[in-house]
């Protein structure tokens, strides 16, 4: 379970989040939509406790993580898998080593065990046969999927996805959607998915929340969001712009 209360954050002189409240029940998937630069990635970083908010509380399974210090947080973060927007693969390692990293680092798994699980994870994200390549040698979409495999391989109970389908072709994107659904249904993973891809949003969401001007403007089931009376929400989900361009 994730519960965020009155979260404020920003950088020198700017406010990015101005009082975010949200709650994601166990095994539930919340999709967050909102404009580029609206602070969605920052929100995920805060929930994973990679940065400290200015104000607010973040409960992960009923424990507030905001006051905890880095040394205490480090082992706790095993609970959370995060897919970074830019994948953030270790560029000195191969794809295989990246995906194996969470298992290898704990020193508790045998080489054979690791090999089996990495191959399974690479297959889940359609990357079989690419394990020997360095992150610099594969496309952005492939890096993203490798990052996803690394995020989920140690079976976290919470997964945060930052634009998981951005840069993927529709077929692969759909397989990622299926993977998100499978993790949630079979392994009861609690998820937050940040996305601009409304097809993906409707497919994976239990609820959708729109982040606008630093707050959750509206949230509800996909059907409720589709029928929202709020013009800002309607404009976003239909992808309409007010800016007219003279040609």
């Amino acid at each position: 379970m994730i519960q965020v209360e009155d979260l404020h954050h920003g950088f020198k002189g700017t406010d990015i989040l101005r009082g975010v409240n949200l709650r994601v029940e166990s095994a539930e998937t919340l999709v967050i939509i909102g404009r580029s630069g609206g602070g969605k990635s920052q929100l995920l970083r805060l929930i994973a406790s990679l940065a400290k908010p200015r104000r607010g509380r973040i409960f992960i399974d009923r424990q507030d993580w905001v006051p905890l210090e880095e040394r205490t947080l480090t082992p706790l973060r095993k609970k959370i898998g995060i897919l970074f927007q830019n994948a953030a693969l270790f560029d000195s390692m191969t794809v295989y080593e990246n995906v194996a990293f969470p298992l290898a680092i704990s020193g508790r798994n045998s080489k054979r065990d690791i090999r089996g699980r990495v191959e399974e994870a690479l297959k889940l994200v359609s990357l079989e046969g690419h394990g020997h390549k360095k992150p610099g040698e594969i496309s952005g979409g492939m890096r993203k999927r490798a990052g996803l495999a690394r995020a989920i391989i140690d079976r976290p109970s919470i997964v945060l996805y930052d634009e998981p389908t951005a840069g993927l072709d529709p077929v692969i994107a759909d397989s990622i959607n299926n993977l998100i659904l499978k993790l949630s249904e079979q392994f009861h993973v609690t998820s937050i998915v940040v996305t601009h891809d409304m097809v993906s949003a409707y497919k994976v969401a239990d609820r959708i929340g729109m982040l606008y001007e630093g707050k959750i403007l509206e949230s509800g089931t996909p059907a409720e969001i589709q029928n929202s009376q709020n013009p800002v929400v309607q404009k976003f989900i239909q992808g309409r712009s007010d800016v007219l361009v003279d040609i």
Partner: protein
Amino acid sequence: MNMLLDPIANTAFRFLSELGEWWSLTLETLRSLFTRRPYFREIFTQIYLIGARSQMVVCFTGAFIGMVFCAQIFYQFHKVQMDSGTGPAVSIALARELAPIITGLILAGRVGAAIAAELGTMRVTEQVDALRALAVHPVDYLVVPRTIGLVVSMPMLTAEAILVGIVAAYLVGTQLLGIDGGYFLNNMEKYTKYKDVVAGLMKALAFAWIIVTVSCNKGLTCEEGAEGVGKATMEAVVVSSVAILIANFFITIIFSKLLTP
């Protein structure tokens, strides 16, 4: 008034806050060194990258410093007919000052720059955050192996520089300058004490600590983008070089009380 004071106050503030960051990284590194399970693979990799791969350049500079110093000392000593004093002057200067300083400055350039650039790039591409998200503390995984790598390598590299420098000086002295080989070695052995070498190796340890903590700190607190990485790298080299020279002076003074030269 403000136009004059603000830049000074800002610089002082930045200096103090960086000193604070450096100090907390130093403490965290010590804490991790003594309380955390080490990542052995990383440690061996770093010893290899830092120590083994630096030998060439350290030996090369050690040899040339030994040779030029031998020649210079000889020209001066020759005037007062003290040719045989060249050997010990060279060996003591190499052991106490030249080898640790030269090795320190070379490693500040070679290893300090590499560490700051690597960690800086990892930071700006969120690889450091990815580590943290995977329940690995960056100090344990990145800083400690580099610290051990440098702290283990630096005294050995310095010893190597002393040795190569002396051999090179001996060759120049006997073959080029016509000093008697027997005298050269005899006097060198007579006047060079083990504490001269100990003093040099202790300096090497201190310089290793300076290089690794400064460079790791610059890398891990790097600002955004390619520009940030460039700046962190440059500052790592400059700050650790200057710190080495300052520390060298104070260590020399302290040692002169403890280990009389």
